[in-house]
Each structure stands twice: as C-alpha cells, then as structure tokens.
C-alpha cells in the first residue's frame, strides 16, 4: 500500500527533526536601534537587521525600531541592515547594544534585493537566470479580482489576455506558446504549488517570474511554461493594523455591437429577397411571405412593422397562402392572453437595445483588514478579505471571503517552524465566455423588434417572432441568478527549518491544496424562445473535491572561502493529486420554485448521473503523482564570475513504467562586468551583468491520467442499447473507451537565454533574448477513423520553437525633495513557429469550442505559428454575371458575393485554394507604468498595448450576413453592402442564399487588425499628513481615486480587441471574437489605505 509506506516516510522524517532540535542554549543580550531614511528622516518599516555570519535576524517596526537578542559571544559581531530601496548598512557592534538612529542612504539600485527563486533565495546581483521581478505596488494599482489578470504588462516576457468576466480565467503565456494544450505557468506560493486565481493581492509581498531554463529547470517537468513565485507577507515589528479598501463602479460599453433598430432589421429582411431577384438570378416569385410582414414584392419595398408580434397580423390558410389574420385585432385583447398559444407581445418599433438590457453599471468592492507583528522570536500576519465584483453582465459576480494566516516561530535561534494558510469561500457562477450560446451572443442574435417583456410582464422572445431562433438574453441571465457555483479551498503549508553545522539548513514543508465545490442550476422551460418552448425543465446538481499534497525536503549548504562563495542545495519532492466529483440531473419538475429543487423531486425516469473529475480533460475521477529529486549549485568568484547548475529528476505516474523518469539539467553563467577593474572608472555604470543559460524542462499538463492503458468503458448514451424494444429502457453495453500508449512521455523544452542586467545612472535595464525549442509536443494521436471510437492516446510528436526577446527599462527621477517619479516600460516579443509534425502529417485543423458553423478557423502546420487563421482569401466581390462567368469556377458564385483567390491557379476554387489569412499572435506587447509623487500627492498611470495581432471577427457571421438565422444586423449594413453602384463595400450583397460564396466558409473578410493601446488605469492619491489624525492613533491614511480603462485606441470595431480563446486550456484557437465579455469597461474607483 503506497499510502502506508508514505506514512512511514513521514514518521522517519519527524524523527530526524526531533534529533535536530537538541541544540544547546547560550546566554543572551539585546541590541536595539532605530532605522531612518536619509532623504526624509522618516522611520523605515521592515528593514532587515542581521548579525553577520549568523542566522540572527529581525525586522524593524513601523516606527523603525528593532530589538534583536544575541548571544554573548556575538557582542563584537558586525550588524548588517538592509531595506528595499536603500543601500546596505554595515557596522561592527563593538560591544554597544543601543545603536541609536541608523541613517540609511536611499539607493537607486535594487541589486541587493533578495529574490526568492526556485527552492532558494538569492540577491538580485547574484542571479544568473532570467527572472522578472514584478513591481507589486504597480500591479496592485490596477483593479482586478484575479491576481493572474493583474500580471498583464507588468512583467517582461509574460503575455496575459483577460476578459471582463468576474472570476474568469486569463490566458497566460510566458515566452510564447509552448503547447497546443494548457500553457499555464507553474505557480508557487510560499514554496508550495498553488494558484494565482483567488490570491488576495493585498497579502502579496513579492512576485517573481522565472523565465529561462537557468531558473525553471529546477522545477523539471513542470517548469517549461515558466514559474511564478509568490511570497506572501510576514509580520514585522510592532503590531500594526492595516485596512485597504476600494469601492467602485464598472460602466458597460457605450456602443455595444453597433446594431440597427427594428425598421433597419425589417428593411434588411426584405432586401434579402428582392436582391436575389434583382442580382442573384432568382425568379420574381421568390418573394418572402411571413406572418409579420406579409407577402413581399419583387421590387424592394420597406416592410411595415406590425403593432403586435403576437398575435401575428398575417397567417397562412390551409392552402399555404399568407393572408391577413382575421383574429389579429380580437386576439390583442389581454383576456385572450395565453402564454403558449397567444403570448400577446407588442412590437418594439424603435428596437430593443439588447446589449444594454444585459449590461448594466455594476458595483465593485474589496476590503482587507490585516494585522501583523514580528520580533526575533515569532511573527504573524493575519488578514481577512471580502471581495464583491459584480459584473456588468447582469447576474454575473464573484464574491470571495478569504482569510490568510502566516506565522513563524524562531525556536532557539536555529529552528524556525511556521505555517502559511489561505482559506477562502467563493461564490462565482460564470458564463461560458466566447460561446455562441451565451447571453452576450444572444444579444446580437435576437431581433430588435422583440421587447423584453410581453403585455403581462412575462419574458417576450422569439416565441413571438419565430423568424429568428435566438434565446432571450435577459431571461437567460436572470435565470442564471437562481444557480449557484460555490467553491471552498484551503491552500498552504506547514514547515520547519533547522540551521546546523554553521553552513547547513534543512527544511521540510508539507502543504498543498484541498478544494471542494458544489453547484446547481435549474433550466426552466424556455417558453419565450422559438426553440425549446415546450422542452421540459430540468435541474442539475453536482459537487466534488480534489486534493494536491506536496511534501518538499531540502538541504542547503552555504559557505564563503576567501573569494569563493559556494551554495549547494539538494532535495526531494513528492506531489500527489486526487480528484473526483458527481453530477446528477432530473427533469420535469412540478414547480420551478427554488425551494422545491432537489435531485429526488424530479421525474424519476429522467434521472441521469455522471461521475466527473475536476480540472482535467476526460470525464472520470483522476489521480496522479510526481516524485522528484532536485539539486542546485551556485558558485561565485570574487563576486564577479557566477556559475549555477541545476539538475532535477522527475518520475510521473502519468506514464508507463520505463518512460516515467526524466532528467532536467541546466547551467547558467553570469559575469558582473562592472566589478572588473577596468570598469571602475565609468561612474555612470552602477552595475552591468551579462548572463546566459541553457537547460531543459518539461510539460505534462496535456497528458490525462491512464494514457498508457487500453480501457473499456460504459456510458448510457454511448454503449447502452434497448435490445428488447421496450422504448423506455436500455441494456448495459461496453465499448473500448481508450487506446493506451506505453511510450508517451512529457513535452521537452530546450531553452537558451542571453541577457543583460544593467543599472546605468538613473536607468535600470534588463534585456533578454531567448530561444525555446519544444520537442515531443503532446497531441492526441490523429488516428484514422478505422481505429474505431476509442479515445486515441496522447503521444509525443511535433516540434515547436519560440524565439523572442523581452525586457524592461526603468527610469528613477527625482526633481527635488518633494517631487519624485519613475517610469517603467516592459515589452515582450515572441515568434512561435511549428517546426514539424509527425512524419507525413501536413497539418491539423482546429475548430473553436465556442462555435464552429463555418468549419475550422485555424490550422497547425510547420512553418506557421500556433493559432494562425486559415481559409479562403477574399479578393473582392463578383461584379456581375459576366465576372462570375470569366472568373475561376466557384460554388455559389453570384454578383456581390465573395470572390476567392485561385491560389493554385487551376481555374476552380476548391478546398486546396485556402491559405493563411491572419495571425492572432501579437508582434509585441508592452506596458508602461508612470509613477510620481509630489509632496503628499501620488500619481500613477499604466498603459498596456498589443501590436500586430489579427482578429477573426466571427460576430460578422451573425450580424452582417442576415440570412444567418435572420438575427439582428449591423446598423450600417444597408448603406455599406454590395450593390451595382457600390462594388467594393464593407459587406457582401444582402441575400437570402447560403453558399460557399457567402456564409459557409472561413475567409479573410472576417479578419481585422487587432492592435490596441489601452490606458489600463489612472490613479491620483493623497496621503493625509501624519499629525492630522495622530490623536486618533492613525499612523497613515491614504486616499485615491482611480479610473480604469479610460480609453482604448484601436481600429478594431468589435467590443474589445483583447480576446481569449473559447477554452483557456486550448491554445489552438484564440483571437476569435464571438462576443467576448469585454475587458475594457470603464471603471471608477475610490480607495483608502489606513494604518494604525
């Protein structure tokens, strides 16, 4: 039994620690002092006070004071004081115990900042890998409910794509796209694998992004997508209470989808038919006949909008002719109202603005109270957070209640025992973003003639106007408010560290995440819709749990011999995941009253159950484990020449024995040129470091549990069969559910990096060039269908390469004592290219999960980036019938329709004439952060931009091709569509036909430029002078007003050029607009930070 053995392992380890606890105790004295800054004589909070060559350390309190107990024998030691933003201070104690005021010099350099990297911490100057240190304060200046979304533009090399959905995920890509499946980076919070998603930003002390193999290879098979290291706050000094809060409002976009009103809709409807007669060769009899506009004419005449949609002004007689409805007037009488047969609905003759019916201004608030304190004996940090982010899409929200408790106890100076715990409860029912079946998409699909409510106040919809089939967006969202989606998580660890033999530190940490979730939703009979108006109601309820257990043991050695500084780390790590869940469903509920809903009150014969896993690919419970050894050596000679090497050995349960084990080495070099004698005279160079690294890491996120096994399964919809003809039951059947592959292994990355870190006068510059070559890309094998229906195994083939550069530059300016500012710019560039696919496979075509009514949008093919759009290239519109005749043969060709390029010049347009029509990968993305302080005023502006990305505007399929389900249309469709006098317009000929030449194919007409520049936030704050509230015990009070997304400069006409994929776990389709929950909504916020 693995579990039992594991327990024994833990027992042994505890015994080891018991042994290490047996150290002797020395007599003690206390060193005290107060640390202040030179420029303003203000006390410095959180400065680290260390007795050099020992582990004795403490930090300063809010008033800058500290007290550090030292043993007698350290009375003549040197004390070193470091604080972020200040030059290090160092002086011998020389027996003195009260050091008085220690004045620290402000520093423009961050070289001595201690950076937490893989399993260790290093001074910035000693780092040889490529590590972006995120400015947490700048990150916090943008409002956001998920921490990953805030990384956008803050770290060079990190591309983040957000949506406006409260609690929605983000696409995060560190140095390009390294897989067709998930490329989520590994997130380590306080040394334990975790997630950024629900982290409270107010708890965060620092964030580092590890990008190159020199820094990520120590995470081995989990490291290839980059690693984000988060450290949360520790208590320092005297107890302080902090209250951080903001309240704001998010404003829906003003323009929406730029759709027309009711008369425009009717006019376009009529034009479909008359245009086909006039230009499309349709017979003059091809006129419309329906119950709302009556019978059309061969020549275009604008239809007359009826007063009522239901009853209908026209009807059909048994012979099939459209005639005036004799009961039209009588059936308008409210007494005749019948929700099924006569849902009396007035026409909205102006037109319902569906976008603004579902998008409303929404409040947003967050409150965090924290208490912290720390001494040389113990420290604690405790915080409470309440977040309520109401989305502008009605009835979407994220509510989170979170508690963090971090404590550390220093036992006998050389032992530290502590824990980090984060517990939260989240209520976050979400919409499926970027999907043709959500309320956002319905808002452009539903005709404007339909009002929100019928005359009795029930929802009106396409049931009253069956020309279109859209669901009613307001009804969809309001109904969703009756659903729940709750999640409860605890994440963190307990740890112990022991210093021994002067140069050694052993650490053990046990932690992980436990998650529980539950949800239910009720789907009422959609009486207001054209489709499903008689479908039964149903109720679905599910719940599940998952756990990740990580146990890490490391041993550190650090010693300096003369000019040599050597650090060695070895360790082991085990990780175990288990998750499962259930879902049940019944239908035909007697009542739609929420109090009545549970799984046993529906019709028993409609019961269906599912067993689900959580957060993985297929529909089964999941378990997996990873067992690792890791090692690291850092060597520095004269603080100039730096060498690092890491090696990790990982063994994963996801693969078959024999293919479980992988080794991931890396080596990195650094040369601090500025330390060389010949550089000493160049005063404007404070520091200059050249570094390079090479190494391997891996990715196994795409591999499902059990990939190596041949399996049989059983599913009622799939393998059960009513062999005895009972009509209402079925017999158990089995089917081969999976083909196993014994040789599958991880995706392997070889990552090379060359970088420069420089501090030049007032500038800090970091630039990196990288090349990331991914081999053994994991794809589900593209077996011919002759293999049968069993899931094909995931196998390794295909190579991918990302090459790029990224960097950041900061200017620290100080005009005078009252006015300081700094400016930071980051930029990220990558080109991603598929190098090869399995022998002979020329390409893979990928559909979007959100909608795929016109075939695959993208193709994966050697020589091209992941996600490139593939389809016909539109070279214009057919001018007339003569043009149709003399052009290459094309299905559906007709005047005013798309004319495609005959790429292979064979005189006919076929599948093989499709070509590359756009690339959603930006040429580069950039962020610009401006910070200024004038006396008590502070100012921040943050810009973010993306340049050179294309967008596939699939919304045009729905709004600009009116024959597509006869949905609502663009307001300028009539003026800007093809006619013999307008041969080169925005839109093709308005037509009722459907063919490859208009609605049925992916083509370049949909592709638009997606570059944009956005003012993400603009903040003005004021710090109340200390003496004002001193009487109330308030140490610090800061107010600010912030505007977010105040403008977006772009040529893109859709809601928002920032577009996630329909599925965040799939990198093959993104930059496709299906009506994204916009991330660019103006938000106004008032915030307050209070310390006492």
């Amino acid at each position, binding site marked *: 039994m693995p579990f039992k*053995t594991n327990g024994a392992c833990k027992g042994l380890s505890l015994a080891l620690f018991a042994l*290490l606890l047996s150290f002797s105790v020395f007599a003690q004295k206390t060193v005290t002092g107060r640390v202040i800054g030179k420029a303003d004589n203000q006390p410095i909070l959180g400065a680290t006070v260390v007795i050099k060559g020992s582990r004795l350390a403490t930090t300063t309190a809010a008033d800058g004071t500290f007290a550090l107990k030292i043993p007698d024998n350290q009375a003549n030691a040197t004390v070193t004081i470091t604080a972020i933003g200040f030059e290090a201070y160092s002086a011998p104690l020389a027996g003195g115990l009260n050091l008085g005021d220690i004045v620290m010099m402000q520093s423009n350099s961050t070289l001595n900042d201690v950076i937490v990297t893989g399993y260790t911490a290093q001074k910035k100057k000693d780092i040889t890998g490529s590590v972006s240190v995120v400015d947490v304060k700048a990150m916090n200046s943008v409002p956001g409910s998920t921490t990953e979304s805030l990384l956008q533009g803050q770290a060079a090399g990190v591309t983040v794509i957000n949506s406006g959905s409260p609690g929605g995920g983000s696409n995060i890509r560190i140095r390009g796209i390294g897989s067709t499946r998930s490329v989520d980076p590994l997130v380590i919070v306080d040394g334990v694998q975790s997630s950024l998603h629900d982290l409270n930003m107010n708890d965060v002390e620092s964030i580092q992004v590890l990008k190159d193999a020199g820094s990520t290879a120590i995470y081995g098979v989990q490291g290839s997508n980059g690693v984000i290291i988060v450290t949360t706050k520790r208590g320092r000094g005297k107890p302080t209470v902090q209250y951080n809060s903001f309240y704001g409002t998010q404003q829906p976009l003003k323009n929406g989808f730029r759709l027309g009103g009711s008369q425009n809709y009717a006019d376009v409807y009529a034009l479909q038919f008359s245009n086909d007669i006039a230009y499309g060769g349709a017979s003059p009899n091809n006129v419309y006949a329906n119950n709302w506009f009556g019978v059309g004419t061969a020549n275009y005449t604008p239809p007359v909008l009826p007063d009522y949609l239901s009853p209908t002004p026209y009807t059909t007689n048994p012979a099939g002719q459209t005639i005036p409805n004799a009961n039209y007037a009588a059936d308008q009488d409210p007494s005749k109202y019948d929700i099924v047969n006569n849902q009396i609905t007035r026409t909205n003759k102006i037109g319902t603005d569906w976008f603004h019916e579902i998008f409303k201004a929404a409040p947003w608030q967050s409150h965090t109270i924290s208490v912290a304190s720390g001494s040389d004996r113990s420290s604690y940090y405790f915080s409470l957070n309440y977040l309520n982010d109401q989305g502008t899409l009605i009835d979407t929200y994220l509510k989170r209640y979170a508690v963090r408790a971090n404590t550390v106890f220093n036992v006998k100076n050389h032992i530290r025992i502590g824990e980090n715990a984060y517990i939260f409860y989240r209520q976050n029912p979400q919409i499926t973003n970027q999907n043709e079946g959500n309320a956002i998409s319905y808002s452009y699909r539903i005709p404007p003639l339909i009002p929100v409510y019928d005359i009795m106040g029930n929802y009106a919809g396409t049931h009253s106007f069956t020309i279109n089939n859209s669901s009613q967006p307001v009804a969809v969202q309001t109904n969703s408010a009756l659903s729940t989606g709750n999640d409860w998580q605890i994440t963190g660890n307990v740890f112990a560290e022991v210093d021994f033999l002067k140069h050694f530190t052993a650490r053990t940490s046990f932690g992980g995440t436990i998650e529980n979730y539950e949800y239910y939703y009720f789907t009422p009979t959609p009486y207001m819709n*054209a489709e499903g108006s008689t479908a039964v109601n149903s109720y679905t309820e599910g719940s599940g749990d998952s756990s990740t257990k990580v146990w890490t043991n490391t041993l550190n050695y650090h010693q300096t011999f003369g000019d040599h500084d050597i650090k060695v780390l070895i360790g082991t790590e085990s990780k175990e995941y288990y998750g499962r869940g259930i879902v049940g469903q019944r239908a035909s509920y007697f009542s739609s009253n929420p109090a009545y809903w549970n799984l046993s009150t529906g019709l028993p014969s409609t019961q269906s159950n599912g067993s689900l896993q959580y957060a993985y690919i297929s529909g089964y419970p999941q378990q997996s484990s990873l067992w690792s050894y890791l090692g690291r050596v850092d060597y520095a000679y004269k603080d100039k020449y730096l060498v690092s090497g890491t090696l990790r050995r990982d063994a994963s349960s996801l693969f078959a024995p024999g293919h479980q084990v992988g080794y991931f080495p890396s080596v990195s070099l650094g040369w601090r040129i500025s330390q060389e004698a010949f550089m000493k005279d160049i005063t404007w160079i404070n520091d200059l470091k050249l570094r390079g690294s090479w190494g391997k890491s891996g990715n196994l996120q795409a591999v499902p549990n059990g990939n190596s096994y041949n399996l049989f399964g059983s599913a009622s919809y799939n393998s059960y069969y009513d062999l005895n003809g009972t009509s209402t039951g079925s017999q158990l059947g089995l*089917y081969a559910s999976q083909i196993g592959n014994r040789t599958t292994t991880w995706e392997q990355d070889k990552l090379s990096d060359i970088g420069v870190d420089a501090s030049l006068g007032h500038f800090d510059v970091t630039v990196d060039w990288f090349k990331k070559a991914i081999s053994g890309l994991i794809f589900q094998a593209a077996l011919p269908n002759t293999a049968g229906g069993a899931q094909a195994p995931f196998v390794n083939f295909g190579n991918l390469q990302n090459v790029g550069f990224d960097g950041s530059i900061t200017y620290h300016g100080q005009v005078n004592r009252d006015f300081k500012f700094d400016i930071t710019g980051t930029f990220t560039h990558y080109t991603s290219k598929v190098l090869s696919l399995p022998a002979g496979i020329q390409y893979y075509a990928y559909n979007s999960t959100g909608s795929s009514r016109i075939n695959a949008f993208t193709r994966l093919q050697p020589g091209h980036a992941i996600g490139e759009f593939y389809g016909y290239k539109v070279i214009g519109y057919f001018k007339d019938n003569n043009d149709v005749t003399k052009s290459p043969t094309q299905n559906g060709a007709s005047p005013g329709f798309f004319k495609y390029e005959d790429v292979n010049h064979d005189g006919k347009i076929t599948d093989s004439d499709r070509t590359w029509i756009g690339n959603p990968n930006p040429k580069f993305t950039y962020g610009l952060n401006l910070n200024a302080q004038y006396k008590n005023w502070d100012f921040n502006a943050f810009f973010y931009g993306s340049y050179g990305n294309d967008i596939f505007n699939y919304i045009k399929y729905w709004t600009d*091709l009116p024959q597509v389900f006869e949905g609502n249309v663009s307001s300028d469709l009539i003026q800007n569509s093809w006619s013999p006098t307008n041969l080169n317009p925005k839109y093709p000929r308005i037509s009722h036909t459907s063919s*490859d030449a208009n609605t049925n194919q992916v083509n370049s007409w949909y592709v638009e430029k997606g570059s944009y520049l956005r003012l993400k936030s603009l903040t003005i704050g004021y710090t109340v002078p200390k003496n004002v509230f001193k009487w109330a015990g308030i140490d610090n009070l800061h107010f600010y007003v912030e505007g977010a997304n105040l403008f977006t400069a772009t040529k893109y006409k859709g809601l928002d050029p920032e577009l996630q994929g329909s599925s965040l776990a799939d990198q093959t389709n993104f930059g496709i607009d299906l009506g994204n929950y916009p991330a660019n909504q103006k938000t106004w916020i008032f915030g307050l930070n209070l310390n006492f």
Partner: protein
Amino acid sequence: MNKLKKISKIMIPLALSIAVLLYACGSKFLNKPPLGTISPDVVQNAAGIQAILIGAYAGLDGAGLNNSGWGSAVDNWTYGEVAADDAYKGSTPSDQGDIVGLFQWNASATNPYVGQKWAAMYDAIQRCNDVIRNMRLVKGVSGTDTTEWKAEALFLRGFFHFELRKVFHYPPFVDENISFANNNLNVPNIDGSGNYIEIWPRIEADFAYAAANLPAIQANKGQANKYAAEAFLAKAYMFQQKYDSAEPLLMDCINNGVTAHGDRYKMLTNYSTNFDPDPSAKNSSESVFAAQMSVNDGSASNGGSGKAYGDALNFPYGAGPGACCGFFNPSQDLANAYKTDASGLPLLGTAFQSGSGVSDPTGAWTGNVDPRIDITIGRAGIPYLDWGPMPGDSWIRSPADDGHFVPKKNVYAKSQQGTLSDNENFWANVELDANNVNLIRYPDILLWEAECKVLGKTQDLAGAQALVNQVRARAANKSYWVTSDGSFNAANYTYNGSTYADKYAVGQYTTAWTDATTAMNAIIMERRLEFGMEGHRFFDLQRWQAALPGTTSLPGNYMTTVLSTYATIQNAIHPTQYPPTVKFVTGQSEYFPIPQGQIDAENSTGKVYLKQLPGY
C-alpha cells in the same frame, strides 16, 4: 563542539537512508491507475463479451459514436432523402449549411456531415471487431457461444460496412485484424495497382456467415436472426444487380421468414402502425430489422445525444410536437408522386410532375391521392396524429426555402408525449422519441422480389405484379386512412372519423404487365410511395443508375435523369436552394466524397492508401 560532530555523524547516514527509503516509497507511489474505467482482462468473459456485443448494437442508433451527429443519423435523412428528390433540408438557408453541399451534389471533401458518417460507422465496426478479438481470449466457453457471438458481430459489421458502401462507394473494409496494436490502421481502398477495392464480397461474407449461424429465434426482439441476415445479404445482391443470387434468399424470407421473436413475416393491417413508437407496435411481424430507439433511459448526461438523436431536428418548427428546428421538409415532388388516377393508380414516369401540385398554394391538385401521403407528409389542414390539423406555414421555418410540408413518420402522438418522447434534459427533448428506425420492412422484401422477377432470369412479370399488388392491397386497407372528423387513436394509430381528409384512392394493377419497363416503372414508384421519407430513395436511385436488364426506356443513368429533372423543377420554385448551377454529375454524384481528414490521416506517410472518389 562534540555535540555537533556527533550530530553530523548521525545526520549524514540518516539523511541518506531516508532518501533511499523515500525512493522505495516512490516506486509504489507512482502506481496510479485510471479510475472509472476497466482494463480488457475484466471483460474477457461471457458476460463481458455479451456487453461488448450490446455496445456494438448501440452503434445502430447512429448516436453517441465517434464524431456522430446528424450526418450519422441511421435513417440517412440527409443522404437518402434530402440529397434525393423526396425532401428539402429545411430551416433557414445557413442553418446546418453543410447539408447544402449534399443536396446540391457538390459536397466538398471537408464537409463535416460525411466525416460524421464515416467516423461513426468505423467506431461501430471496431466494436464488432472487439467482440471477436476479445471472444478469442475468453477461456471455458462453448463453441456454440463463440459462433453465436461471431455471427451477431459479423451481421452488424456487415451492416455498418453496407452503410459506408452506399454513401462512399469505396470505403476500406476493416476486419478484426485491423487495430492500433497491429499498426495497420491505414487500411487501403485501392490495390497495389491503384485500382479501387470493391468491398461487396466482404460484406456478403459477413452476412453469409450470420445467415448460416444465427438462429431464427432470439431472446431479444431487437437482435439479429437468420432471416434478417438473409434479407441483408439479398439487399447487398440487389445493390449489385445480382437478382438471381438475391431471389432464393428473398423467397426463403417470404416462405419461411420469422422475426427474432418468432412471428411469421407479414405486413401489418395498418400501414401507420409501422411508425408508432409504442413497444407493442415496434418489432412487429413487418419489421425485419430495426434500429431500436428508447427514451427516458438515463442517457441525457451527455447533453441529450442519446438514442434517437439523428432525427432531433426533423420536427415541425417550434410548435405542435416540435420544439425547435424545422428540418427535413417533404418536397413538393414527393407530394405530387402520391397523385393517383381515377382507378387509384399512380401517374408513372414523369407524368405526376406535370399539372397542378398536391397542396400547392398556387393552385392545388384536385384529383385522387394515395392515402399513404398523409402518413408520410404533414399537409396543411390534414390532421397530424392527435396534434390537430397541421396549421400550415406556421409550422414551417422558412416557407420560401422549405416548402409547405412537415415530416410525419418520425413523429409521435400528443398522447404519447412524455412517455414515448423524452423527458430528459436536452434543448429539444420533445424531439427525441422512441420511434424505431425500420432498416428493412417486409414490403422491402416483396418489392425486391418483384424486381428480381422482372430483371432476373425468371422473367415472371405476373408474379411481380402480384407482389406489387400485395403491397398496394395493404395500402388500400382503409382503417388507417386519415379522416378529417373524429379523432386520432394512439392505441392503434388510426383516425376514427368517417370523412376522409382527402380524395384517397389506391387501386390494383389489373392490366397485365407485358414489358419490363412498365413493370419497373411501377415498382420504382411503389417503392417511393411505400418508403417515402424512410431514407432509401437516393440509394434506390443509385441501384437503378445501372442499366436495368430487359427495360427499354430505362437504359441506365436513371438516377441522373430523375435528379436532373428534379433540379430543373426545383430551380423554378426554390431558386435559393437549387440555383441553375446545381448539376447531377454521372459518375460522381451517385456517391459522397471520402472525408478529406481521413485521406490526410491514412496517407500521412506519403504513401497513398485511401484514394478519393472520381470527381471529388
């Protein structure tokens, strides 16, 4: 510091031993088998093989299979009817726009519908092969068991290949030796010289084994038996114009055939009972073999893609029994085919296409009609089971595109709603019902036999006429005729009024047939009238595309003639669906393209295994 030295002495060996121990934990720690599934050794026993066999039968419903969808519907409504002259796609032009390529006979090889049919059928075929492969690994079962399992598996395998053969002409034959483990999945459809491989002999061999080894009577009504296998073997011969090989099998079915539960084959009194989802009506003496459909069976967990999913779009639009979609509207041409003359005989050849149309708003036919029309087609003003008179175009999604008719055979009665239609969660659950899809009905056998008598060596035109008249005699049984007064009785699927809804007349051929052409024209029309909207029309035309021996005015290319005429007529009334460019191309349009993705996958090494059909 002695203490520290002591500790270091203890420490280092201890740390080492812990590391080793941890590794020992590691090797078992890494054993994490998948959950919720079973490995093959668990199913290699009698009960397991039975269950795999049921899994293979589950392929018959065309749903839940690999890439399955409306393109893999077992009744082949898209290929068999919409692509022929019986039905329109329905709905709005762009809705399921991929069907446009199918009925305009220019489908691209990337059309997703053909991809669905291909993938779903091979999924089902490998389920049959799984029965045989795993059966061989079972210890301690009798030879009788394995023969029975194999016979059923081969029956089904033959059926699924037959489906592929009808749609794709040259699909590769996948037997139990083809597997991922054997690394031979690139199954060719061409031989070493690049010529297409004809799979009829392999299909015949599977049915022949089944016919020889299956018992006549089975435990379950939906199981294949000896006579079902003979009927399918005969059908395979009919597709090859091997009338003399088909005839003895058909005669055996006529003289001795019984259903799987032992009923002698015979036509039901009421034609309409064939389309009743009630378990007492299904698997009747007329049902030679059917795909079993069930509802309220707990299969909704996959979003409803359960049993009868293939026809989920094919209901009136948004009203009556429909919740959605409004697809699969019977064509004006099909309605016109039901015209009969004063003696109740159909207007053969193209005669029915001239003059006014049946229920045509611009001037309706006022003569007699065959009563089967109102079981097959929902027409305005005619009672639509117990849903009341069909109200007309308000049940049609887009009359300009879809005409004025709605499908009827696949629908259920209002009084059956909720019991024989689905109650489970699905966006159009009321459009899932328990109607079986009849794959061979007994009149099939009678009319094939009639063809054999005309086209085979017996040249028994009188015998053929008698068989056609036998089918017509049942159609003439008034008990199922639709009445415009009274009500519909779902218990026996009859209308109990006394005034017929239209001028019904169905008479016997009394003038003796003297030539094969006359006889074949009558048989061809009879099949259309009897099986309208059941998914056979396109494939019948495909069979008759070959020269029919002994006929004079049916010299081959019959399919081209019929469908070209149809396209011309449709161009006048539904120009958006049938623009002038729509052409039926002989030698190409009889079949649908092999999915491009499959050609790419099989030929990925550069060697051509799978070759596209001519013209595509």
